[in-house]
C-alpha cells in the first residue's frame, strides 16, 4: 500500500500531463494557422528531410492530441485496467522519444528551439527543456497501474492534492523557458522605429492638428509633393506660396496614431533655404479645410463625375468624424501606391 502523498502525486500527473499535451498541440496548431504551413522546421522536425517534415509534424501533433484526450477519458472508471495503462504507457514513451529527439537536436542543431509550444519554444534546447521532457516521461510511466481517480473530498484531501499540483506546476514553470517568452510577449510594446503606421493615418493626424490649421493658408495643393519616413518621424512636404515666392511647407510628424508631435518649416522651393513664416496669414480656408468637405460630398454622391482629390487615399475622417473611404480598393498596401513615396526614385 502506497503512502497517501505518493498516491496524490500520481493522481495529479494525469491532468497535468494531459494539459501539457493539449497545450503543446494547441500552440503548434496556432503556429500552423499563423505561418500557414506545417513543415516549419521548428523542433525535432528539423532533424528530418524536407519531404518528411510535414508528416512528422502532423504525426507529433496528432499523437499529442490523442494521448492528451485519452488520458482524460481513461482517468476514471472508463477504460480502467489495460486500456488506461496502455494510454499512460504510450504517453510515457512519447515523452521518452521526445527526450531522445531533443538530445539529438541539441547536438546537431544547437540553435534550434524545441518547438514544444510552437512559437514560444524558440530558444535553443537547454538542460531545462531536456529535464522537463524526461520528468514528464517518468511522470507518465509512474501512473501505470493507478486505480481510477475520484474527485477528492473537500478539506484536507483536496488541499493535499492541490498542494501537490501547485508544487509540480512550479517545478514545470522553472523548467519551462517558454514562460519567460510568454511574459515578455504580454508586456511587449514595439519601439516607434519599428512600428508600422499607415501614411494615411499620419496625414489624417496632420490635418487635424493645430500646426496644419496654422500653416494651411500658405499651402497650395492637397497632395504632398514628397513623403518619407526616417526612424520615428514621417516627413510630409506640401507646395506653398508666400507672396510671389514659391515655397514648400515641411511637416515632421511623430509616428503616433493620436495627437502626434509635429514640427514645421517653411523653405524656399528653389534653394531650400529656411524662410520666415508670414506674419499676417490670409484668412482664407486652405486645402486642409476644403478637402475633407469635398471628399465627404464625393462619398455622399459617388455617381458624380467629379474626381476626388488625388493625394488623399485610404480613410480620411471628415470634421464630423465620419470615415470617407478612398476611391477604388481602399485596403492593403496598394492603397497608398500613388503617394509620392521614394519608390519613384
Amino acid at each position, binding site marked *: 500500500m502506497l503512502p497517501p502523498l505518493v498516491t496524490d502525486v500520481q493522481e495529479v500527473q494525469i491532468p497535468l500531463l494531459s494539459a501539457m499535451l493539449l497545450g503543446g498541440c494547441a500552440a503548434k496548431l496556432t503556429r500552423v494557422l499563423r505561418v500557414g504551413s506545417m513543415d*516549419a522546421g521548428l523542433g525535432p522536425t528539423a532533424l528530418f528531410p524536407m519531404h518528411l517534415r510535414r508528416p512528422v509534424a502532423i504525426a507529433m501533433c496528432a499523437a499529442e492530441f490523442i494521448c492528451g484526450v485519452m488520458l482524460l477519458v481513461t482517468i476514471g472508471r472508463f477504460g480502467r485496467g489495460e486500456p488506461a495503462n496502455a494510454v499512460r504507457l504510450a504517453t510515457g514513451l512519447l515523452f521518452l522519444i521526445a527526450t531522445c529527439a531533443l538530445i539529438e537536436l541539441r547536438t546537431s542543431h544547437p540553435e534550434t528551439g524545441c518547438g514544444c509550444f510552437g512559437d514560444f519554444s524558440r530558444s535553443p534546447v537547454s538542460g531545462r527543456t531536456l529535464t522537463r521532457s524526461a520528468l514528464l516521461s517518468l511522470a507518465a510511466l509512474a501512473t501505470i497501474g493507478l486505480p481510477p481517480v475520484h474527485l477528492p473530498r473537500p478539506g484536507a484531501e483536496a488541499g493535499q492534492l492541490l498542494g501537490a499540483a501547485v508544487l509540480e506546476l512550479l517545478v514545470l514553470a522553472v523548467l519551462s523557458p517558454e514562460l519567460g517568452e510568454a511574459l515578455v510577449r504580454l508586456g511587449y510594446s514595439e*519601439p516607434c522605429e519599428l512600428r508600422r503606421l499607415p501614411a494615411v493615418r499620419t496625414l489624417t493626424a496632420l490635418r487635424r492638428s493645430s500646426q496644419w490649421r496654422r500653416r494651411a493658408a500658405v499651402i497650395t495643393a492637397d497632395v504632398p509633393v514628397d513623403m518619407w519616413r526616417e*526612424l520615428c518621424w514621417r516627413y510630409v512636404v506640401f507646395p506653398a506660396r508666400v507672396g510671389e515666392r514659391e515655397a514648400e511647407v*515641411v511637416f515632421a510628424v511623430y509616428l503616433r496614431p493620436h495627437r502626434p508631435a509635429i514640427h514645421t518649416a517653411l*523653405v524656399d522651393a528653389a534653394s531650400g533655404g529656411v524662410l520666415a513664416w508670414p506674419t499676417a496669414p490670409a484668412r482664407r480656408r486652405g486645402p486642409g479645410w476644403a478637402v475633407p468637405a469635398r471628399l465627404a460630398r464625393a462619398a455622399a454622391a459617388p455617381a458624380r463625375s467629379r474626381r476626388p482629390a488625388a493625394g488623399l487615399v485610404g480613410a480620411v475622417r471628415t470634421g464630423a468624424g465620419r470615415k470617407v473611404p478612398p476611391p477604388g480598393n481602399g485596403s492593403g*498596401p496598394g492603397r497608398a*501606391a500613388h503617394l509620392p513615396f521614394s519608390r519613384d*526614385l
Partner: protein
Amino acid sequence: MLQVRREHRCCDRFAATKTTVRTSRRRLLKDAVFRPQNSGADDPAGLPAPGDLPRAITGTVLDISPHVLVIGSGASDTRITLTAGATAWRGAPLEPAGVQPGDQAVVRLHRTQRGVADRIWANIGRVTGTIIERSGDTLLVDEGTTKPRQVVTIPGRSAGRIQVRFPNLEPGYLIDVIGLRRGGTLEARIPATSQPAYPVDQLPPPAMLPGHVPATISGSATWHEPSEEPPGLLGALYPALDPEAGCAEDPVGGVAPRFMRMPYLAIGSRLVVRNDCTASTCTFPVTGCAAVARLFNDRCVTCGTSPRGRVADLTLASFVALGGELERGCFNATITIGR
C-alpha cells in the same frame, strides 16, 4: 534547359543624379525642420560625391603590362600603375599581369598613392537569391523582381567547396556564391556564406526587441553586382525600408520578413557605415531595399564573428572603398542611422 526570365521590372531608381538630388533635398528639408540654423550648407546631404572616393575604379581592361594597367569605362581610359605589392583575383589569386584584356575589372587604388593599384578583381560576380530550378550542376536563381534571373554553374572542382557550405542546392533554398562571370552565367567558385537551414518560404520570425532601437547596429555588410546601377554609385541597399513605401526589389511572391529588427528608413536616408575590420567609415545614402539580404540571418567572420544579420548590402564601389575584399563577400560592419 533552364529558362532565364529577362522581362524583369526595370526602374530608374539608380539614376544617380536623381537619387543624389532627392537625397540632398530630403536632407535639406529635414534640417530645415530640426536644425534651421545649419541649413543652407554647401553639402546638405553630407554624402561623398563619387569622385571623392576614387578608391574603386571599374571598367574593361584595355591593356596590361607588368607595370601598367589601362582600364576603360565608357569614353575615358585610366592608366593605373602596378607595383610589386598589388594583388589580383580572377577566380583565384594571381599576379596582376595575369589579368587579360577584355576582362571586366574592379580596381581598388592604393590608400595613399593615387594612380597605384592595390587590388584587382577581374570578372568577379556574385549571385545571391533563391534557387528556382536546378538542372544538373546548373542553377536558376531569383534575385528579386528588379533583377533578371541568374544562371549559376557549379564546376566540378568547386562543387565540394560549395556544397560544404550549401548542402541544399534545391529549389526553395537560398544561395550566395561568388565566382567568375562568363557571359550571362556565373561560374561559382566560392561560397559567400553558409546556407540557412530553412527554405525561403519558412523563415522564422525575428526576435522581439525591447525598448528603443540602438543607435548603432552591428552585423554583416555585403556587396551586390550592379544591375541597373551606374558604375561607381556609392550607396547601400537597406533591409528595412518603410513598408508604406514598399520594396521594389522584393522577391517574387510577396514581402519577405526580415530577421534583424532594424528601424524603418527611406530611400535617401543616410547610413554611416563602418568597416570594423579596417576602421574605415563612410556615409552613404540608402539607394534601395535589400530584399534578398534580409532573408539571410548569417554572420560575417572576416575579422572576428559579427552579430547575426545583414545590415547593409553595399554597391560594389562602396564595398571596395571601405576596404572590403570582394572575394570574401562581406565585412563586419557597424551602421549608424539618421545622422
